[in-house]
C-alpha cells in the first residue's frame, strides 16, 4: 500500500502508466461516445411531451453529473497535496479544473439550448441551473488562480487551499440554493421527476454517463502528462524523452 503511494508520487512511473492506460482507454472512450450518441440520437423513441429535443439529455445530463463529481476529485487531490505534499496530487488537481469547467460549460450550453424549445426561454433561474452556474464560477476561479501565479508549485498550493474551502462550501451552497428556490416557488416551470424515466431512455443515458466518466479520466491523464513534463523538464528522463521524441 505504502509503496503504491510512493509510486504514485513518482513522475516517470505515472507518465509511463498513463501512457499505457491511454493507449486502450482513449479509443474505447471515443468509440463509446460515438455509439452512445448514435444510440441516443437515432435508436430511442421520442419523449411523448418534448418530442425529439429531449435527445439532448444524452449529453446534457452526463456532462452535468461528471462535472459535479469532478469537483470532488479536485478537492481530494488538493487535500492530498496539502497534507502529504505529494507533487502528483498537485498536478491532478490542476488538471481537473479546466476539464470540469469545460464539462460544466457543456451542461449549461446544452441545457440552455434545450430550454429554448421546451420552456421557450434560454435561461431560467432554477435551483439546479443556478447551482451549476455557481459551480462553473468555482471552476473558473481555480483555473484563474492557477494561471495568475507564476510559480506553479505555489499556484498548486493556493488552488488546493481554495478547493478545500470549496468542499466545505459546496454542500452549503447547494442546500441554500435549493432552499432559495423552494422559498420562491415559481409555479410555471418544473423539472419532471427523474424516477419515471423509461428504460428505453435510461439505458442509453447510463451508458453515456459511463462514457463521460471515461472521457474525464482520459482528459485528466492527458493534462497530467503535459504538466508532469513541464514540471520535470530539468530531470534526466524528460530530457532523454525530448531528445528521443522531440529531436526530429
Amino acid at each position: 500500500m505504502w509503496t503504491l503511494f510512493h509510486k504514485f508520487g513518482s513522475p516517470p512511473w505515472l507518465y509511463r502508466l498513463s501512457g499505457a492506460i491511454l493507449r486502450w482507454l482513449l479509443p474505447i472512450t471515443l468509440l463509446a461516445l460515438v455509439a452512445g450518441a448514435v444510440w441516443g440520437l437515432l435508436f430511442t423513441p421520442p419523449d411523448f411531451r418534448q418530442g425529439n429535443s429531449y435527445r439532448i439529455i444524452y449529453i446534457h445530463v452526463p456532462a452535468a453529473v461528471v462535472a459535479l463529481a469532478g469537483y470532488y476529485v479536485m478537492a481530494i487531490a488538493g487535500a492530498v497535496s496539502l497534507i502529504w505534499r505529494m507533487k502528483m496530487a498537485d498536478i491532478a488537481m490542476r488538471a481537473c479544473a479546466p476539464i470540469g469547467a469545460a464539462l460544466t460549460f457543456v451542461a449549461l450550453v446544452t441545457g440552455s439550448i434545450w430550454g429554448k424549445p421546451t420552456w421557450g426561454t434560454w435561461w431560467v433561474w432554477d435551483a439546479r441551473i443556478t447551482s451549476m452556474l455557481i459551480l462553473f464560477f468555482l471552476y473558473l476561479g481555480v483555473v484563474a488562480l492557477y494561471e495568475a501565479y507564476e510559480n506553479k508549485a505555489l499556484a498548486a498550493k493556493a488552488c488546493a487551499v481554495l478547493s478545500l474551502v470549496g468542499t466545505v462550501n459546496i454542500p452549503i451552497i447547494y442546500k441554500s440554493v435549493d432552499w432559495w428556490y423552494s422559498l420562491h416557488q415559481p409555479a410555471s416551470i418544473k423539472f419532471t421527476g427523474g424516477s419515471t424515466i423509461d428504460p428505453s431512455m435510461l439505458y442509453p443515458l447510463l451508458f453515456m454517463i459511463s462514457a463521460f466518466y471515461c472521457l474525464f479520466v482520459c482528459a485528466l491523464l492527458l493534462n497530467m502528462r503535459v504538466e508532469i513534463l513541464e514540471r520535470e523538464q530539468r530531470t534526466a528522463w524528460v530530457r532523454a524523452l525530448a531528445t528521443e521524441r522531440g529531436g526530429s
Partner: protein
Amino acid sequence: MKPASTAAFCFRLLRRQLVLGLRRPVELGNPLLFFAMVVALFPLGLGPAPDTLASFAPGILWIVALLSNLLTSDAVFRSDLEDGSLEQLLLAPQPLYLAALSYVFAQWLLTGFLLGLASPVFALMLGLAPAAIPALAASLLLGTAVLSLVGGIGAALTVGLKRGGMLISLLILPFYMPVLIFGSGAVQAALNGNPTGPFLAILAAFLCLSIALAPMAIAAGLRISIDT
C-alpha cells in the same frame, strides 16, 4: 527575549488596523459612502415607483452590502504586503491564526459593523417597512462578519499576485451566495410576518463555522503569498 503575550499582540494588531482604517477612509474603503451611493443609484436605474422598490429593498440592500464588502476585502492585506509588514507578521512568534482573525475583525468593524448600524437609514430611504428593520440590521451584522472572513481567504490567496487584478471577486463571490440568500431571506420573512429566528440561527451557524475554519485558510494563503 520573551515575545508579547498573544492576547496583547492581537489587541495591538487590532488597534493598529483600526487606526490605519480610520486614518485612511480610502484604503479600507468607506463602505457607508459606497452604500449610500449605490442605494441612490437603484431608484435612478430601476425607476422610482415606491411599491416595487420597497418590495425589493431587502434584496437590494443585501446585494449592496455584499458588494461593498467585496470591494474592501481586497485591500485587507495588500498594503501590508507592499511595504513589507506582512513578512514581519509571518515571522512573529504568535500564532498566525489569531493575527489573521484580528485583521479580519478590524476590517469587519470598519465595514460590516458600521453598515449594520447605519442600515436602518438606507432601509427607510428605499421605503422598507419599519417592521423589517431589526431583522435587516441583525442579519447584516451577522452576515457581513461571515463575508469578511470568507473575503479574507480570497484576499490572502491573491495578495501576492502580480497579475491578479480583481481575481478575488471571482474567487469569493460564489462563497458569498449562501449568506446573501439567508440574509435577504431573513428580511423577507420579517416583511411577510414570519419568524426570523431560523434565518438568523443559520447565519450564526455560518459564522461559527467560518470563525473556526477561515483563519486557517487565511494563514495558509498568506504563507503562500509571501513566498514570492
